[in-house]
């Protein structure tokens, strides 16, 4: 097993989870006021709350994947696959966030 690729793959998964968490919280907090209020209460500003949640998810998934890694790794192919998922998650999320605020403005 290549330990380095397994650890980096875990943090790529963490990045995917962080990007999706930011997107989900952005849309959900704007549609559901109590969630935005909760983020404000906990972190003084909803945007700081989203950033803090993303950091937590990134570290939890990254270190979780590192600590509980499986013995059979798939080397650089797994890292490439992880980056592919990260790339498309980022593009999809950017379109969702931008499209959501255009929709909110127009409605």
């Amino acid at each position, binding site marked *: 097993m*290549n330990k*380095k*690729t397994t650890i*980096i793959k875990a*943090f*790529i998964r*963490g*990045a995917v989870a*962080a*990007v999706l968490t*930011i*997107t989900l919280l*952005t849309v959900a907090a704007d549609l559901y006021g109590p969630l935005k209020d909760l983020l404000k209460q906990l972190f*003084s*500003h909803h*945007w*700081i709350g*989203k*950033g803090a949640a*993303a950091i937590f998810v*990134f570290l939890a998934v990254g270190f979780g994947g590192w600590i509980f890694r499986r013995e059979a790794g798939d*080397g*650089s*192919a797994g*890292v*490439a696959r992880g*980056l*592919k998922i*990260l*790339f498309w998650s*980022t*593009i999809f*999320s*950017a379109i969702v*966030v*931008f499209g959501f*605020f*255009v929709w*909110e*403005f127009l409605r």
Partner: protein
Amino acid sequence: MNPALKINLIVHIVVGLIAVAAFYAVLVNLLKSRLNFFSLRFFSLAGVIGIFLSWFTGGYYYAVYYGQAVKPIIKKSGYPWIHDVLMEAKEHVFLFLPFLAIVLALAIWFLESEILADEKLKRYLILTAGAAFVLGLFIVLMGMAISGAANIKSG
């Protein structure tokens, strides 16, 4: 705006631009047939440091000043969509960049032999660097539009 906040805003813009330039440098270096890992490591690290500094300085400005002093000006102007669409999208899409920057740097710093041996891995690193650069560039352009809208009304 007090002088400390002005300096904070200038630092946010400068380090943000440095980060976007670093993502571009990583992208261009990865596109070369002979990879220079000294240069790739330097620029990927510059991207991480730049984007985190830009996050903290921009976050401070946004939480302490923008909402109270700039947002109302833009909302009352003839261009409320500059806040409602551009600023809202900018501040949230920006949050993706630190995570892209970290995984890009981790792969470049620790997977030199794998990147040299695996074309597919190199291709997806190019796409990741490209996504960070293009999103960063859009964020810079949106920032310019936001500053422009605030200055038209307050200038």
